[in-house]
């Protein structure tokens, strides 16, 4: 900005180049983010995939062609055909129906788990970064301890303590991802809390709580949103892993991880048993990751102004 003449927009009749660079009446806020997202093919694709998963999760009962636990020994281990699009498993259950039903479990577990991690982690990181001192040390050292364990090992340990099941798997995954959020939030808070506008808000009577919630938090929302998107994909993977190990979703309820586990014995004869649940995990996780990457580019107000050809 300093190298650039800065036309004062107060001079109304004189429309300067500036007005074209940053249109004063463009879409703003969430509308702008949405527009930017939809301009990118990859963004559109990931959103479509994720919307598809959500629709399947919500309306799977109506969309699935068969009852998920209908055993039909006569039609066991059928390869994909017109009747069973994704084939059947060793008990003659329809793979497509089970993949669809599993999406509900995956979405539920990962969304709740990431919400837990988000709320707890962001709160901790914000407090640690904003106040610093002993509070920072206590919070971050405790996070370091959690961080020191491999994620899946920690999740397994928590499930081992609480007992296997969907609820405990959700809690375990949530706890495992708290440190990531705490770290991202703390780092961003540290860089933002010394900004003049935070000081200015203090000079105008804002207490610590208000400074954190209305001045620090909005300015660090971008990395947190990106982290949320990325963590969702990891949470889906973790849920699949835990279920694969028999610590998450319990049979006969289907889950992508559980289906992969069940398919091991038939790996050489019935490829469809492992490929379709695997593909479901792969696509969902990929979409979450790509969306996270794109959000990273789109979410920054200032870089968005630059993307339009501006100079600031």
């Amino acid at each position, binding site marked *: 900005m300093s190298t650039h003449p800065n036309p004062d927009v107060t001079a109304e009749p004189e429309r300067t180049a500036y007005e074209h660079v940053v249109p004063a009446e463009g879409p703003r806020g969430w509308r702008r983010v949405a527009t930017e997202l939809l301009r990118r093919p990859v963004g559109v694709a990931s959103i479509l995939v994720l919307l598809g998963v959500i629709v399947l999760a919500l309306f799977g009962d109506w969309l699935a062609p068969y009852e998920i636990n209908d055993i039909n020994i006569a039609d066991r281990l059928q390869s994909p055909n017109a009747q069973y699009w994704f084939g059947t498993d060793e008990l003659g259950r329809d793979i497509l129906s089970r993949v669809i039903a599993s999406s509900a479990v995956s979405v539920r577990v990962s969304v709740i788990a990431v919400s837990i991690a988000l709320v707890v982690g962001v709160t901790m990181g914000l407090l640690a970064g904003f106040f610093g001192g002993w509070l920072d040390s206590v919070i971050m050292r405790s996070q370091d301890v959690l961080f020191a364990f491999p994620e899946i090992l920690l999740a397994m340990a928590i499930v081992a303590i609480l007992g296997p099941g969907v609820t405990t798997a959700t809690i375990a995954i949530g706890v495992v991802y708290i440190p990531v959020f705490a770290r991202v939030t703390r780092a961003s808070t540290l860089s933002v809390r010394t900004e003049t506008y935070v000081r*200015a808000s203090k*000079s*105008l009577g804002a207490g610590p709580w*208000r400074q954190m919630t209305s001045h620090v938090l909005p300015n660090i929302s971008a990395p947190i949103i990106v982290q949320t998107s990325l963590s969702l994909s990891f949470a889906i993977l973790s849920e699949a892993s835990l279920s694969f190990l028999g610590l998450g979703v319990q049979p006969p309820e289907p889950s992508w991880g559980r289906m992969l586990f069940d398919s091991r014995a038939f790996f050489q004869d019935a490829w469809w048993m492992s490929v379709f649940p695997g593909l479901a995990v792969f696509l969902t996780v990929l979409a979450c990751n790509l969306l996270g990457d794109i959000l990273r580019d789109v979410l920054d107000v200032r870089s968005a102004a630059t993307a339009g050809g501006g100079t600031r």
Partner: protein
Amino acid sequence: MSGALDVQSLSVTIGSARIVRDVSWSVAQGQTLGIVGESGSGKSVSVLSAAGLGPGNAEITGAVVLTGSDGVQHDLLSMGGNALRRVRGRRIGFVFQDPATSLNPMLTVERQLTEGPEVHLSMTPKQARGRALELLELVGIPDPERRLKAYPHELSGGMRQRVMIAVALACEPEVLIADEATTALDVTIQAQIIEAIRDLQERLGTATVWITHDLAVVGGIADEVVVMYGGEVVERAETVRLFQETKHPYTRALFESRPHLGSRAERLLSIPGSPPDPRAIPAGCVFWDRCSVRADERCRTEHPELVEPTDGHWVRSFYLPEDA
């Protein structure tokens, strides 16, 4: 002596660094006080510390009393955090140097303007919005309806500083503190901002403390000027007096080092040397090693007191122009 803001023998110490020593000034309702000094003279620290915004580990002594328009006196230094928070923004407003960084880039102009009134004056969001519109008009921003929805990066530097002034004045504080408020702006915008503040001051009766290193700005706006050097007040007088009968060698040197329109000097005069290290304040006069009139041992060994040779004109020097 009672004004909107009274500062009595304020001292700020951080560890062994005595950053501000025995500073007193006061500013009355509707008046403007200019605090002038070079970087490191303690001018910002003294004012920010008075409002509890100084460095966290600073030790502050003295008295800072703010008198509200309702006559209630607030002793800022003895106040707790919550009470101080209710004073800041409500009774003292701040405008900082760089409007590009002092506005929150993620919030709209409207949100930044409504926060104060909602918190301090318990306005409903609707009332606060009305107030925000009023404020933008007050500081001279055209098309306020549209600007309310703008983000700071969509405004020019001058407009941003106007918004910042509007934010600072949102609750009609008794005192406005402008910390180098025009330093980051170019000269024409600077003049507009000064004009805007002066105009508002007349209308609202706000007492203004204007911290700057620019004597020209002070000459144009202040009623009284305090010159600070090395953490002390070295001269204090009404603006006209100070400009016409400059007494302290430091103030005179400041005037001499200004460029003059029309006369193209080969080189601009400067004051050789740099201000004293606040951790090792000399025993004698703080300006001793850079002073052009220093005469004898007395300057080096004895600390001059702030004296009042003529009524209302305070100087901290052994050698005044009359004697020289």
